[in-house]
């Protein structure tokens, strides 16, 4: 005779959590798949240092999440044996490690924001290419700065005048000889003066993508190497642009592929960070519960969720930082 099973041989809560996780697998697979399509279909993509990505920091965050995965699984083992204090200790440790992850993430976001790399328009300064629109945007910003700093002294006006001259030169060349390369080269030099490529190969990459005429590559490399050098930060030795030397300038910057990079980076890491945040909220709530054998299922369920969040980061770290 045929007979029905009343349920899966696991608690209902665990069934629900696994169903939820299977939808999450598809959610992140969609996001990561889209990233891969956009990244490898893109005509230009910024080198990690051009967008202030630090691989060691990303690796550290990976390590932090792996540690937190271990602590939550140890919390489950302790809860199963009704070692409530130990379980709570490991839960607290997991909460702290998750907090460290979010703190590092916030620091990384701040690094990008401080250079004008935002996911959306109102604050973002990133342009894809040094074309007429870019030069016009620089001029607009210079005009805004002039009205802002009318009362100020000479040293502040000096960089503004210097950049203004380059803007004039570029616009003149573009207008007078539209068929010539000179306008584009001048606009490129303007972009490099404001925000030089931090990765030494970027000029060559830009040339390979057709952004710079071949004849101008040597001139641009020399231009980049003659710019003042920066000695202290982690990408030490890169050329310092106007935006580095005068942070208040906040002029539009040119990073080929930068806007698309920013959209995908902030979307992927943002959704992942939201998942981390949700996990931390649940951990914080569970601190008020006695984690004995009767609550082991609860610990197991949140543990499964937390391992999944770790799993997503395992794929995001190489994709975003090392590819």
């Amino acid at each position, binding site marked *: *005779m045929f*007979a*029905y*099973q009343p349920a*899966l*041989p*696991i608690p209902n809560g665990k069934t629900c959590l*696994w*169903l939820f*996780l*299977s939808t999450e*697998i*598809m959610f992140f*697979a*969609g996001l*990561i*798949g*889209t990233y*891969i*399509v956009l990244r*490898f*279909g*893109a*005509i*230009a993509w910024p080198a990690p240092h051009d967008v202030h990505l630090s*691989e060691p920091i990303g*690796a550290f965050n*990976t*390590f932090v999440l*792996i*540690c937190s*995965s*271990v602590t939550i*699984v*140890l919390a489950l*083992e302790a809860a*199963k044996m009704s070692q409530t204090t130990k379980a709570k200790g490991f839960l607290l440790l997991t909460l702290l490690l998750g907090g460290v992850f979010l703190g590092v993430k916030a620091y990384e976001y701040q690094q990008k924001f401080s250079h004008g790399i935002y996911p959306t328009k109102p604050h973002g300064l990133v342009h*894809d*290419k040094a074309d007429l629109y870019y030069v016009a945007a620089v001029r607009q910003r210079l005009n805004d700065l002039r009205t802002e700093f009318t009362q100020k002294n000479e040293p502040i006006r000096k960089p503004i005048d210097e950049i203004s001259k380059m803007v004039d030169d570029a616009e003149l060349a573009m207008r007078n000889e*539209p*068929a010539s390369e000179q306008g584009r080269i001048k606009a490129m030099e303007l972009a490099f003066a404001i925000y030089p490529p931090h990765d030494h190969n970027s000029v060559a990459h*830009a040339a390979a*993508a*057709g*952004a710079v005429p071949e004849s101008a590559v040597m001139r641009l490399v020399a231009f980049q190497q003659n710019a003042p050098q920066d000695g202290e930060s982690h990408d030490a030795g890169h050329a310092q642009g106007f935006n580095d030397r005068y942070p208040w300038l906040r002029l539009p910057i040119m990073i*080929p*592929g930068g*806007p*698309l990079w920013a959209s995908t980076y902030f979307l992927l890491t943002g959704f992942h960070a939201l998942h981390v945040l949700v996990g931390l909220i649940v951990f914080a709530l569970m601190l008020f519960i006695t984690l004995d054998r009767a609550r082991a299922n609860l610990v197991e369920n949140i*543990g499964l969720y937390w*391992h999944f969040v*770790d*799993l997503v980061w*395992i*794929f995001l*770290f*190489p994709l975003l*930082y*090392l*590819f």
Partner: protein
Amino acid sequence: MTQFSHPHDHDQQARHDSQEHIDHGGIGKYLIVFAALCVLTGASFFTYSSYWPFGKHVAWAFMVAVSCTKAMLVIMFFMHLLWEANWKWVLTIPATFMSIFLTLMLVPDIGWRQNNGFARYSYERLLYAPDPPAIEHAEAEAAEEEMSHDSPH
């Protein structure tokens, strides 16, 4: 069949307990998995260092392999799927298939956007690309009413 169609609560409880008993010996195992995950993270970070002897594409393949290994370790041991009953396939296989199909369905997008190889792009793609190589040049030529409409490449 009867023992499956009429499971005794007592039996299930006993089975549950024995399964937990198996899991109890696992703390050492978790630490070994933890060490393996750390080593693997170091391995993919190694591709970033200047000591990496192979090219970029080998590094990509290597990192994908390392990531999949790490993911399997987490799924098998931390999420206990190694010890779960057959219900695990009901949830994981459809989700995996749908993820793979979803990504595969995005692939034609690359095919349609690119002409051939990785370097040449279709006209539609070039219009919205960050650095259209020679379109401005071509337009300037058209403006000068040059009859020979050479390809920019």
